[in-house]
């Protein structure tokens, strides 16, 4: 039993019961971040802010949304968009944030790859981050279905069909996922459950784990220098704030992040109010029609690269069907980044520009991903199909063959 004395204020009262001062020290004031970092290190906090935006606007949308194929479209496009005060704002914010969060995730991931922040003790940070990416993808996909427009319906049709490629149980699996022989009302209600209940809970848990995974190996820095955090922290506490190579999370790191968040929000609300079509496809403002496929169907932009890997293999090889090759390549693309810490055979932790061949590899990968993304949207006809095929092969080769080879050489 702790010794409780008369408190001299609210903070003290709470501190005696909840140890808030110690908690704040551990979480904020004495959580040390390297000083030598650039704005790319602010992406984590921006992602947290965007997730919060999604969470809060999502709550407001659920107040009026009706998960029923007969009511969903009108509840979104009439009740939310035209009737409820500021309903349109929450929906636009929700849709745009869902799209922009993937841009930031990709920047966050590529930053990690560029500065080597995925290995030598930081594997769990990388893996939990990749898990977040996968669950966010599921969250985005299930959310995209809810307005029950043409794109919602046909995306659901195509993506659930993919599971038909699983050996032996494929067909039964598709019906199990849909809850019906075709995408219909039970499909919508179960994806609604996933979107507003199960997946958000999972995401919040993994975010907590992701943050926790940072504590022991610490945040990487711009030159990948190995710091003695205890020593540097002591320096800071002794008053040598200029000489110390670390800064406290609060207020130093967060003050910088708040600055980036504010600047980012100007851009974000420009998108929300003036340039939202990229995140809210016009075709989805046509109500779902099971008897009419739109002329062009494509996933949201952030799924395009893996979608292109899926359809890049458009011809049979021997007795193996194009569909199966594509599906296998797609499956590999989904999990390959999880293995990055082990595909990179070298134990050198340095920024890419200090790693020679790895530097070249990085930029080829980035360009290849952009090519896959753009050609994933274009109709897969004529020359486009071959470019898509080439880029898919390059993608797989870069990760499965080239990376292990050049990093093994680097080690020697």
């Amino acid at each position, binding site marked *: 039993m702790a010794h409780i004395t008369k408190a001299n204020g609210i903070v003290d009262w709470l501190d005696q019961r909840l140890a808030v001062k110690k908690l704040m020290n551990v979480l904020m*004031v004495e959580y040390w971040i390297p000083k030598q970092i650039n704005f790319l290190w602010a992406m984590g906090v921006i992602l947290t802010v965007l997730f919060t935006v999604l969470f809060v606007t999502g709550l407001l949308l659920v*107040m009026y949304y009706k998960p029923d194929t007969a009511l969903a479209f009108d509840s979104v496009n009439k009740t939310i968009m035209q*009737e*409820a*005060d*500021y309903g349109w704002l*929450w929906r636009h914010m929700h849709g745009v944030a869902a799209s922009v969060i993937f841009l930031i995730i990709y920047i966050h991931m590529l930053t990690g790859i560029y500065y080597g922040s995925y290995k030598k003790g930081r594997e769990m940070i990388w893996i939990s981050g990749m898990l977040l990416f996968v669950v966010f993808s599921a969250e985005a996909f299930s959310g995209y279905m809810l307005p029950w427009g043409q794109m919602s319906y046909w995306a659901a049709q195509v993506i659930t069909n993919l599971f038909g490629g699983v050996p032996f149980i494929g067909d039964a699996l598709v019906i199990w996922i849909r809850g019906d022989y075709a995408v219909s009302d039970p499909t919508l209600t179960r994806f609604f459950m996933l979107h507003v209940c199960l997946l958000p809970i999972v995401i919040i848990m993994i975010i907590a784990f992701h943050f926790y995974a940072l504590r022991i190996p610490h945040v990487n820095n711009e030159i990948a220098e190995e710091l003695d955090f205890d020593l540097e922290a002591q320096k800071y506490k002794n008053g040598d704030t200029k000489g110390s190579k670390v800064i406290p999370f*609060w*207020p130093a790191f967060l003050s910088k992040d708040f600055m980036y968040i504010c600047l980012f929000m100007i851009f974000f609300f420009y998108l929300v109010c003036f340039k939202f079509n990229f995140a809210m496809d016009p075709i989805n403002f046509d109500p779902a029609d099971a008897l009419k496929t739109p002329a062009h169907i494509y996933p949201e932009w952030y799924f395009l690269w893996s979608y292109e890997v899926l359809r890049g293999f458009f011809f049979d090889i021997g007795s193996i069907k194009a569909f199966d090759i594509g599906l296998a390549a797609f499956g590999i693309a989904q999990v390959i980044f999880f293995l990055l810490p082990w595909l990179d055979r070298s134990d050198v932790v340095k920024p890419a520009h200090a790693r020679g061949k790895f530097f070249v590899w990085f930029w080829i990968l980035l360009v290849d991903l952009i090519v896959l993304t753009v050609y994933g949207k274009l109709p897969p006809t004529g020359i486009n199909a071959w470019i898509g095929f080439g880029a898919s092969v390059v993608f797989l080769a870069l990760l499965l063959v080239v990376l292990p080879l050049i990093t093994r050489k680097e080690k020697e």
Partner: protein
Amino acid sequence: MATSESRRSFIGFAFGGVATVGGVFSLVAMKKTWDPLPSVKAAGFTTVDLSGMNEGELRTIEWRKKPIFILKKDANMAKDEKRDVIVDNATYTVVIGLCTHLGCIPAYAPSEGLFKCACHGGEFDVSGKNVFGPPPRPLDIPPFKIEGTKLVLGEEGPEYQKMIAEA
């Protein structure tokens, strides 16, 4: 945050202040999203034509999802100048049919000329005044406006305003 005490400068408070202003505005917007929809508000007006009613007849209609009792008084029923609604020279009782005790719907017993509440035994006379049991006050009168032989519920006409002013 004790150690950051010294860093709490004016500029930090200013930043926090501006951010708070933004937060308050977004809370106001969120509050407005919770408000009843315009379509709900527009449905708050109900018009009833009283011309076809017989003396002594009770009609129950729905207004804002609540039952409204309209009773056309016959010669035997006591008049109540403060509560009677006069439409086209006939006298009516117009009340919200929810017991003022805990909100149950009283049933009309024509033989006794009483509205009796099944929940806790409250009773109201033909003018809607509480005469027995726990109800603390007479049945409430909804805002109304008289238009010829019609009654518009939800709008405040001069007769209603006068009634409220006298009560």
